[in-house]
């Protein structure tokens, strides 16, 4: 017994020494490579002009035909300290790493580190595209033909497979990114067997994608359509040499490629060309990204990014407090209240143990009124509903001030918002007047308004389907119900699960519902607001918004490329929506990010992903 313990102890000592030795060796290695990199950086800063090819790419930006412009955002901070691991929180396991098939916010965020598109949006000026894998994009006059020129000498990251296994021998050779990979992306996106539903509608108008030479390809569109610009430039190459082969490197028959694409073996080993490489994913634990030292562009200072998967918000915050993670993208409302709003001098945010900042979520919440029901077909009724909705108080009390009042379907800071539109105030008297005007008066003396429509007596009693997983939504629904009762309207709250909610909306089996739309900088109103979408089964125009004037604007916007004219049209549309009140636009939520002070230069971008960590660094 004793001997066993002693030998275990000795064993432990020995292996401890081995581990220590290993650690100091890798430490040495890291210092070396860090020095190396800083030297390189010095060279590249002082001598860009001398590098052949560097000129060609810079010159291309002076070409007036080039749709790409020089970036105004500085993603890499010059005085950053090298190295370190950024540990950030993620709430759930991502659904997978096939960039084209998976479209959750989480997966998209990881993709921005690991992979790149042909062009990216300038973070400071999101209407502009700046070079990424492409250095030049030109289009014909009516924007139906785009020619994209890719950078040369960019290589695919190698899938992070176990290279000691001889079956992966074929992966050893580096593969360059070519126009063939770009064409392959569009082929897959368009193919019906590929489960890329989120993009299918955008690529359906592409007539042809052809490779012109090794680094150039052309995308031809059936007709001029506004989103062709973002769809073409925002695309990204996919490694054709991987997706057309099985694990052992044997070519797949051509007709099998799209079918196998969805569950291809490389989905566990995602690759790209970006500043970080995907190292590993353990479900329920973490995702590890490591800086891609072969990256063609400027390298970010942080050496490793780890996404820690922690589903419980309290546990996540506890780890942040203890310094076990560095960054939480979104604090709970309750945590925000106890620690920041009401937190006394001992609050870690006051003592400097933690830092925080408030950023906009690209989304808005609303109440949708089913205009096909007699209750809400009248514009005045819908307007009364908005007037009775005390947005200011709700934002103040239920959301702790973490929201902005929303008046239309755009991100509140987007120039498309019509500056002349003031949010409707909270005014129960005016709301009651409007209901009277619309013919809704209490005729039975039970305190609830009635109206005769087509010989049938209707009572103003409706069911609001609300999303049951958000406590703050439930809180404000009850406030709203109280206010409505005061003007003789009865709201019944029906909190349900998302799947059920969606089914009822698809079947148009609702009076009203609470919803939320995620927003982008690019605005396409067609799916949600065009009257044709009101009759499409499973369409997004669930409230039955039909307005001819609006239809004309929406159709015009689809083919209008001039920014000023677009803004004008968008503002007109904003006015119509404000007048019609198909939704009661509620609020655009904000979120509070919190981090450890060892993170420096924590700047947030203006568009998604706002917490893009390239400019950040870690000071030890």
């Amino acid at each position, binding site marked *: 017994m004793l001997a066993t313990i002693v030998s275990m102890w000795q064993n432990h000592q020995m292996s401890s020494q081995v581990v220590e030795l290993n650690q100091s060796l890798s430490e040495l290695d890291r210092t070396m490579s860090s020095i190396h990199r800083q030297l390189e950086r010095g060279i590249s800063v002082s001598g860009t002009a001398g590098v052949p090819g560097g000129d060609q790419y810079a010159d291309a930006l002076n070409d007036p035909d080039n749709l790409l412009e020089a970036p105004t955002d500085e993603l890499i901070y010059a005085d950053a300290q090298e190295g370190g691991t950024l540990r950030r929180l993620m709430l759930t396991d991502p659904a997978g790493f096939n960039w084209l098939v998976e479209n959750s916010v989480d997966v998209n965020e990881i993709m921005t580190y690991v992979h790149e598109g042909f062009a990216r949006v300038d973070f400071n000026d999101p209407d502009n595209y700046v070079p990424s894998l492409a250095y030049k994009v030109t289009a014909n006059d009516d924007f139906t033909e785009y020619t994209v020129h890719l950078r040369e000498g960019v290589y695919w990251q190698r899938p992070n497979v176990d290279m000691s296994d001889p079956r992966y021998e074929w992966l050893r050779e580096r593969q360059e990114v070519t126009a063939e990979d770009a064409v392959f992306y569009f082929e897959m996106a368009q193919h019906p067997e590929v489960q890329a539903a989120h993009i299918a509608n955008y690529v359906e108008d592409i007539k042809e994608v052809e490779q012109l030479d090794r680094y150039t390809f052309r995308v031809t569109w059936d007709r001029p359509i506004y989103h062709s610009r973002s769809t073409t430039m925002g695309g990204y190459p996919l490694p054709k040499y991987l997706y057309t082969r099985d694990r052992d490197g044997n070519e797949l028959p051509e007709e099998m490629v799209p079918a196998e694409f969805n569950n291809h073996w490389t989905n566990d080993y995602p690759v790209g060309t970006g500043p970080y490489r995907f190292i590993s994913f353990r479900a329920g634990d973490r995702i590890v990204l490591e800086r891609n030292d072969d990256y063609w562009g400027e390298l970010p200072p942080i050496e490793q990014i780890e996404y820690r998967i922690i589903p419980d918000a309290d546990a996540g915050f506890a780890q942040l407090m203890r310094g076990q993670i560095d960054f939480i993208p979104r604090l709970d409302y309750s945590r925000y209240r106890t620690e920041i709003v009401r937190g006394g001098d001992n609050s870690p945010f006051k003592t400097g143990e933690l830092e925080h900042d408030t950023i906009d979520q690209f989304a808005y919440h609303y109440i949708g009124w089913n205009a096909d029901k007699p209750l809400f077909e009248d514009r005045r009724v819908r307007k009364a509903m908005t007037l009775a909705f005390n947005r200011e108080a709700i934002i103040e009390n239920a959301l702790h001030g973490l929201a902005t009042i929303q008046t239309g379907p755009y991100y509140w800071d987007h120039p498309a918002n019509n500056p002349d539109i003031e949010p409707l105030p909270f005014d129960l008297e005016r709301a009651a007047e409007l209901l009277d005007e619309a013919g809704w008066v209490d005729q039975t003396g039970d305190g609830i308004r009635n109206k005769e429509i087509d010989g049938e007596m209707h009572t103003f009693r409706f069911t609001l389907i609300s999303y049951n997983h958000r406590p703050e939504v439930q809180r404000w629904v009850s406030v709203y119900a109280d206010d409505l009762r005061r003007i003789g309207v009865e709201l019944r709250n029906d909190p349900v699960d998302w799947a059920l909610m969606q089914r009822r909306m698809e079947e148009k089996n609702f009076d009203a519902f609470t919803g939320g739309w995620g927003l982008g900088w690019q605005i396409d109103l067609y*799916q949600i607001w065009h009257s044709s979408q009101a009759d499409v089964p499973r369409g997004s125009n669930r409230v039955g918004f039909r307005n001819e004037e609006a239809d004309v604007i929406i159709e015009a916007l689809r083919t209008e490329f001039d920014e000023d004219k677009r803004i004008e049209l968008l503002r007109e549309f904003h006015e119509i929506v404000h007048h019609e009140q198909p939704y009661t636009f509620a609020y655009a939520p904000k979120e509070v990010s919190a981090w450890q002070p060892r993170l420096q230069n924590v700047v947030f971008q203006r568009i998604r992903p706002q917490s893009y960590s390239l400019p950040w660094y870690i000071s030890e």
Partner: protein
Amino acid sequence: MISYIIKRILLMIPTFVVISMIIFVVLNLAPGDPSARAAADGTETVSQDAQEAYRLFQQQFNLDKPILFNTRFSLSTEDVEEKVLILANFQRPICLDEEALEALEEAEEIAEEAELAPDMAPDGEGPVGEEAELLELAAEADPEEEDCTPLAERPSSGEIINAQETLTNWGNYTVPQLLTLAKEHERADVRHLAVNQLSTNARRPMLALSDPDPPPEIREQNREIARENSTLRRWQLPMDAEEEAVEEMLRENWLPWYEEHAQRFEFSTADKVGIFFLDTRFAKYWENLLKLDFGLSTNDRRPVMDTILDRLPYTMTLGFLAILLAYLIAVPLGIWSAYNQNTKRDQFVTVILFMLYSLPSFFTAVLLLEFFAVGRPFTWFPTGGFIGEEARGMPLLTQMVSASWHLILPVICLTYGSLAALSRYARTGILDVIRADYIRTARAKGLSESMVILKHAVRNGMIPILTLMGSILPFLVSGSLVIEYIFNIPGIGLYLYQSIFMYDYNAIMGCLLISTVMTLVGLLLSDISYAIVDPRITFD
């Protein structure tokens, strides 16, 4: 004994089948399905019309098949016609009813008048308001045209979605019926829709699609299917195509194709029986289960079995420690209570234990975290996870120390609740035997009191508590949803929790079936342990 065990094991099989069937049916009947998902914050992005992707998803996870029994081979042309008609009616314009027709005529008259005497209309704007609307309607739909749907008969959104989904789910079985419709139906638009639907339904699903490395024979078959499917996919026409073009498509492509493959759609009685029982979600699920395959998670598309095996060690360690600790504390406590029966001490301990029993563990867990981990006031324990960062890649001993450090709080949470029950069992067990004759005999022959208790009383009194272990066994693998969630231990419980939230049928089934098996095994073991511990009990 052996024959008893064999009998029990054989009996476990039908029990397991029935339990799995019940779980399966309940799961599949729950409203909503895994393809509907919202972001965690309740916002969605604009959903695209994704018919095809949705269909593939349904097919991949067998959601297009009926749950228990398949009677699709007996579908008649009328059944199919009913669904196609709904779609066709939806696509036709709405008829104007009589009232509207009259109003329309009136509007036309007014318009004519206005045209004749332009000065009568103010500002020469022509007809305004409702009349203008009606005029437009008139321009769109010719009132004499018969191809229209009366407003009252217009199918609702729900009906359309249902018809579309049902038709597509019927898949291959409806090819002959659709073909009949395409040939013989009196309405041109129904014939056209039937041809287009054929192009979806005639396609065959690929085999073993979820396997990233399929065997070569399957690949070869799939290749054949893929080739045929890509041809069939092209054999449809946009809705504005000419009637002749549809006729031609049918004549040139579909009829010859059907002739060639007609045997695919002819079913013998044996085939029908096979389809009735076997081409169903449940049978497909069982087919996989026999290969010890729980299918793919609809959420992350990874094999459920792999994930469960990945997570099992965490849950088992946690469960084992919790059970061990519970017994280590509860059994001596029970014996002690029995010995001090009805004293103040006994009552005090009982009250404390029941107070603990009534504290919900999720509540205690959060409190413990706040007090002992977050630093208010103590930072004695880690905040969650199974093992510390610093211990990764370290020698085994360091790892064990780190893991046990992490597990102290969760194990406490899992343990204290069961102390009351277990110690009560132990107490009763001892009290039952302590007055027995053989205890008196043992005392009488002069054995020391500790010998009497340990050797005679405890060994006999602990039989019930030992057999209780069998029923605790499933706890080892099913884990604790709440505790694993709060302490972020990546075990089965956390997996189940997340899967329920995501409607991940296969994952939920996997987790539940594993604990079903363990429950059955546990019951068997506890029966066997009776016989081993107490030689008086036999099962023969």
